[in-house]
């Protein structure tokens, strides 16, 4: 049971990162490989403001602002010039941005992992199960963010414009939607989510290193694909599924060393059965 709850909490981190991946993919049609590193930037932003002000909430606000700005800058400088170019060129640029962010972090903070304390989290006992309050915060805030995001996309003007752009960019432009603006907004939201993921990451894993974002990034990408890339509920489902499976594997000693292999095998199996992911939208190929 505890394993399951730990899995949910890890899964909600994956889900938040996967949301960023999936939104950017759905709208800008690119894999933002630097997304994992935005989490790292968020984590360092929290780390630095915490060291200066000593207040976790201020840290979170600063992290959200910095990540959002970073997302917009990244989009304008590195990706916008390549709009209309081959998707692979954009992918490579994203990888370049990822290396860039990592090396800047290493130059500023050094490569040593730094411990961080966001507060003392009591564990709460419910029957025989003890749950850390950090886990509860993660789950609650994660759920709120996901619901808000779904509502935002469904019911606001900008959200609907996003759907329109992801369906057909050309037609959306013809309908008077400012495509560039929508893409920028998407990046901003994605990076904002990454900052939130950075916070939850620190709640669970209280230390920062320049490479902290790469593995969660790749796992979250996997989660996004399992759920069907481009689909918002899919990203949530995929993330949580992956988190729970990872935790279950780790709790069985025989399987533990093979956890990564099992997760990725699962991905392959799911894709073979359902090539568009669990909740992906099927697109008919027309001739």
């Amino acid at each position: 049971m505890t394993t399951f709850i730990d899995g949910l909490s890890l899964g909600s981190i994956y889900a938040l990162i996967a949301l960023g991946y999936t939104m950017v993919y759905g709208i800008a049609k690119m894999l933002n490989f630097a997304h994992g590193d935005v989490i790292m930037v968020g984590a360092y932003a929290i780390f630095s403001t915490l060291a200066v002000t000593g207040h976790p909430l201020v840290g979170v606000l600063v992290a959200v602002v910095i990540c959002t700005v970073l997302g917009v800058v990244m989009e304008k400088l590195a990706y916008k010039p390549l709009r209309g170019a081959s998707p692979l060129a954009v992918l490579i640029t994203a990888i370049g941005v990822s290396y860039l962010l990592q090396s800047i972090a290493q130059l500023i903070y050094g490569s040593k992992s730094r411990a961080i304390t966001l507060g003392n989290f009591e564990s709460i006992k419910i029957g025989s199960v003890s749950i850390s309050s950090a886990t509860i915060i993660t789950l609650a805030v994660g759920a709120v963010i996901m619901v808000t995001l779904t509502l935002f996309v469904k019911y606001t003007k900008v959200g609907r414009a996003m759907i329109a752009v992801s369906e057909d960019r050309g037609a959306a432009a013809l309908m008077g939607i400012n495509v560039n603006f929508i893409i920028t907004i998407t990046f901003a939201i994605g990076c904002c989510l990454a900052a939130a993921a950075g916070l939850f990451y620190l709640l669970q894993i209280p230390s920062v290193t320049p490479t902290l974002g790469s593995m969660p990034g790749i796992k979250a990408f996997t989660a996004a694909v399992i759920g069907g890339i481009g689909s918002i509920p899919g990203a949530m489902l995929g993330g949580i599924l992956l988190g729970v499976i990872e935790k279950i594997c780790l709790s069985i000693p025989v399987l533990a060393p093979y956890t990564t292999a099992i997760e990725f095998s699962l991905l392959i199996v799911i894709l073979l059965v359902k090539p568009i992911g669990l909740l992906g939208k099927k697109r008919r190929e027309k001739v």
Partner: protein
Amino acid sequence: MNLIKNIKANTKPKYFTNYIIVAVMLAVTLTMKMTGNLARSNATLLAQISYSIILAVSLNLVVGFLGELSLGHAGFMCVGAYLGCFVANMLHEFISSPLLVLIISMVVGGVVAAVFGFIIGLPALRLKGDYLAIVTLAFGEIVRTIFKNLKAFGGALGLDSTRYKGNLFVVGFVVVLVTLFIIQNIVRSKHGRAITAIRDNEIAARAMGINVTYYKLFVFVVAAFFAGVAGVIYGHFATPVLYSFFSYNYSIEILVMVVLGGMGNITGSIIAATAITFINFQLQTRLSGDLAALKFLVYALILIVVVIFNNAPALSAVREKFSIRRFLKSKRHPSEVHDDEAAWDRVPTKIRMDEVLSVDVIVDDPYTPDKKDPTTKGGSN
């Protein structure tokens, strides 16, 4: 096999250039070695360049010609390196010639990697684009994780391989020539045209009677084979063979070589592989101590700037202005231009009728060798 029949001496200048480049590199460096002018760090660099070229060219077959994004090339390399070196370790007891052992282990490593290529080619039949990309990435990570836990292959300590004591770069470059010979012949044969037809429009290719299943598997198997061979060279270059080297980051590095060199452009792959290995080598050996952290920064900046400069639609005027082609005022056949800068569309979701009709032209054009060449008589199928 039909394929063997189709392999002919390359006479087309475009492909011939590649042999010249590699042969000249080999000749120059070998002369330097003979006259004692080749510093050993450069021999090391050359060995690295040789396996990088093999990796880039073979990945180009998948990404550039078949049009499927693969992020698991390092996984095939990993399989080849581990199994090839495992076999080599056993063979060293029976065979005294290290060169012979190297050759046998390259074949073994290549074949085993090819088997894995076949296995990973199967999902490729059902999946497309980013979905396939993530499956190949997953494959690379799975392979790595498994080797990490196999005690027979040294587990976390890595497999101790025997370093090749002779001039590994010479062997490496000879293998590069063989790789080029096989891959270029595939590309310019009717098989190659079928493969590019699948890239440009799978549905149309299927409609033309091309056996898509066969060709997709074929490409994955061939590319995996050469990745495996490159892995064995790597294993004889550096010991121990350690799982951590073959991470998805390395797959991406190979992909960077292919993309920078140009999709479907073999010369480009060779040059980009050489250049990137060279830059990495220089950054690594020049920047010592505290400056090492700058290495990634410089590499990342070079990457971003080069890609943006090469690809940004807004900069096409600037590119044209500084283009060497224009500078040399050479005339190029339009079909050749088309081949190098082939618009690469991975998931054609909507295809207009005129595009379907034009498929044949696009496919046939770049690879039409001599009109008299009998292989072209049957058309693309």
